[in-house]
């Protein structure tokens, strides 16, 4: 009898830890927040490129600078093993990411390069901005195509 209660408690403890893990995994939250910030800044340069918003050199440059820095955020603690969508709830990251980490990294590097090119031209007018935004969007899409599940 004295053994039972602690055992039960520890099982319950494990179960709640599991439930917390399933709902809010800090690494998953962090990477999703990072992507939300990408979209937040892409919205500025993207709206200008699409003609939804008038071109404004300062606003474009600020958003492009942000994207440059955001894409340099170290990814080291954002992608722990076992945080794919086959293992836990609340993520759209596909298991293939961990099966070919080199490819995933290459796609991040391509994104960094596209953000750097955008930063270099964002203040130089709409004609310079447009293709650079297209290139950045293609870098986002190339990774989502291979590594992000449908909703």
């Amino acid at each position, binding site marked *: 009898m004295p053994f039972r209660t602690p055992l039960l408690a520890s099982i319950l403890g494990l179960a709640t830890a599991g439930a917390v893990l399933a709902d809010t995994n800090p690494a998953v939250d962090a990477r999703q927040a990072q992507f939300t910030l990408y*979209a*937040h800044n*892409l*919205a500025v340069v*993207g*709206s200008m*490129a*699409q003609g*939804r918003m008038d071109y404004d050199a300062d606003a474009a440059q600020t958003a492009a600078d942000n994207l440059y820095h955001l894409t340099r955020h170290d990814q080291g603690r954002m992608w722990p093993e076992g945080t794919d*969508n086959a293992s836990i709830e609340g993520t*759209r990251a*596909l298991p293939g990411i961990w099966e070919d980490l080199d490819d995933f990294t290459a796609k991040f590097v391509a994104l960094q390069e596209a953000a750097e090119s955008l930063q270099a031209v964002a203040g130089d007018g709409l004609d310079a901005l447009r293709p650079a935004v*297209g290139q950045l*969007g*293609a870098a*986002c*899409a*190339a*990774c*989502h*195509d*291979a*590594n*992000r*599940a*449908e*909703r």
Partner: protein
Amino acid sequence: MQRVAVFVFGLALLAGAGFWWLTRPQGLDDADIATLMALDADPERGAGVFWAGGCAGCHSAPGAEDDDAPVLSGGQRFETEFGVFIAPNISPHPDHGIGTWGRADFANAMMRGISPQGAHYYPAFPYTAYALADLQEIADLQAFIATLPPSDAVAPEHELAFPFTFRRGIGLWKARYLGEDWVLQGDLSPEVERGRHLVEALAHCAECHTPRDSFGGLDRAAWMEGAPNPSGDGRIPGITPGALGWSRQDIALYLESGFTPEFDVAGGSMAAVVRAMARLTPADRDAIAAYLLALE
């Protein structure tokens, strides 16, 4: 007793003959073939049909880069509840592609789902949509494919379980699902009609965005309302006006750039669709948007 046996045997024969009759491959009729053979084919117009039809999305090699002149070597895998289908090589290679196919062979494949040898194709190849295309488009499309680089790649066999390995049975499926009329009916503006042609005959958007019934046919009553992802991951979103809530401009720009109104970027199997749609004219992307907004 013997009489009963003869009777049962006769019934079985009749049933067999009935099955054979029902499932026989039926190509285009003679009048269509005659019209088809008399057409002048234009590869430039064919390029438009090719991108609208999304051929490269399925027939390029897995992970191939976006390319003006894609190599249609095949090899991509499509997971479904019936098994895995693998896209074949449709490059103009004479031995390993479709380089030596006649125009009627090509048209029967595209619009009737029948191979030059008279076998049924699986509907993973969306010929139920292409059946609504114009003969001129099919002739132009073949002329464009002939300009693409040949590839000698050989795609692996499909990985299917019995009875789906039995192609003859597809005839029954076709009797039910091939040859349907347009889904969107009524008095349509020329723009919406163009959008309908692009969406229903060529771009086969419904193949992903419409749920299927238990035989794997599209549930036309739930047209574009969203569907489980055939590969098992998540759901493909609905794109009816109610499900989407996007403006005409939102839809047209998404098809061009992959950017949603919130500036998320399209992924999954939609990424390849966007790469193809980006090559259409702005007027055609607008027409697709107009069509989607005319649903319901």
